């Protein structure tokens, strides 16, 4: 499967996710610069990595979401291409309007950097299909602004439609209803604060994250 990783000034998990994608797909992903205006042809999947794009100026992900390449990412997502945003990538996808809600400063005001337990809340999506319903997985988090906010009506809709992919199994950042990751209505865009790409082999302390990428590979086809 041909994949791409979007690189913004200030991205710092772009290499982590590139390594994870290569390990699972066997193919080095294309690294696509934020100033590019189009994605490579024949992609099976696009990743928007973690980091501090544009120094988190204005709001986390706000400037990156308006960069030239994001117009192509939004268009591709609208056509059904799987797009995965992790950490800052989640913030970028929310700011770009691909996902509902917003990521706010952690309620503790502290940067949270540790392993957290998550519950897999939906197993129908291409991203989560290889997990068991209500399975507990452990992924690292490293963020200052992961406090998920959406109005009550939106939260009810997300829960009712099975669009909450992951929930924190513990209090991490103040997120509404402990939401750690959400899907778009079509199910081809996932944003989450925790880092599955940092949990893909035993040397990482576990490989809970690997199935997320393997599920995608199975869905999209090699």
């Amino acid at each position: 499967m041909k994949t791409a990783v979007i690189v913004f000034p200030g991205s710092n998990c772009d290499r982590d996710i590139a390594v994870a994608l290569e390990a699972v797909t066997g193919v080095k992903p294309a690294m696509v610069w934020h100033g590019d205006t189009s994605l490579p042809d024949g992609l099976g999947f696009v990743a928007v990595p973690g980091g501090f794009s544009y120094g988190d100026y204005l709001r986390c992900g706000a400037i990156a979401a308006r960069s030239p390449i994001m117009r192509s990412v939004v268009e591709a997502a609208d056509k059904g291409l799987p797009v995965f945003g992790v950490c800052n990538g989640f913030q970028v996808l929310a700011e770009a309007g691909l996902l509902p809600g917003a990521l706010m400063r952690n309620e503790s005001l502290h940067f949270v950097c540790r392993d957290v337990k998550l519950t897999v809340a939906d197993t129908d999506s291409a991203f989560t299909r290889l997990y068991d319903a209500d399975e507990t997985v452990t992924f690292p988090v490293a963020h200052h602004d992961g406090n998920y906010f959406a109005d009550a009506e939106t939260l009810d809709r997300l829960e009712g439609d099975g669009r909450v992919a992951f929930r924190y199994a513990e209090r991490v950042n103040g997120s509404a209803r402990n939401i750690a990751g959400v899907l778009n209505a079509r199910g081809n865009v996932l944003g989450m604060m925790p880092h599955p790409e940092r949990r893909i082999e035993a040397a990482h302390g576990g490989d809970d994250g690997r199935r997320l990428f393997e599920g995608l590979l199975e869905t999209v086809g090699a």
Partner: protein
Amino acid sequence: MKLRIFVTLKPGVLDPQGRAIHHALGGLGFAGVEDVRAGKLIEMEVADATDDAQIDAMCRQLLANTVIENYRVERA
């Protein structure tokens, strides 16, 4: 034309930063502070011909995230 754009969190949206400021003011001994909300002030210099619709578009498309924030424009 000078613009001052105030971006503030919507009522009901938790403001941990405002809460920390509130707490710190209490620590300094200032009594009677009932609530603190922190926001942003963005100052801009724009062409005099810039109309309200353009200013509003700038606020909606970039300066404020209307999921969580309100904005108010002041022309100087």
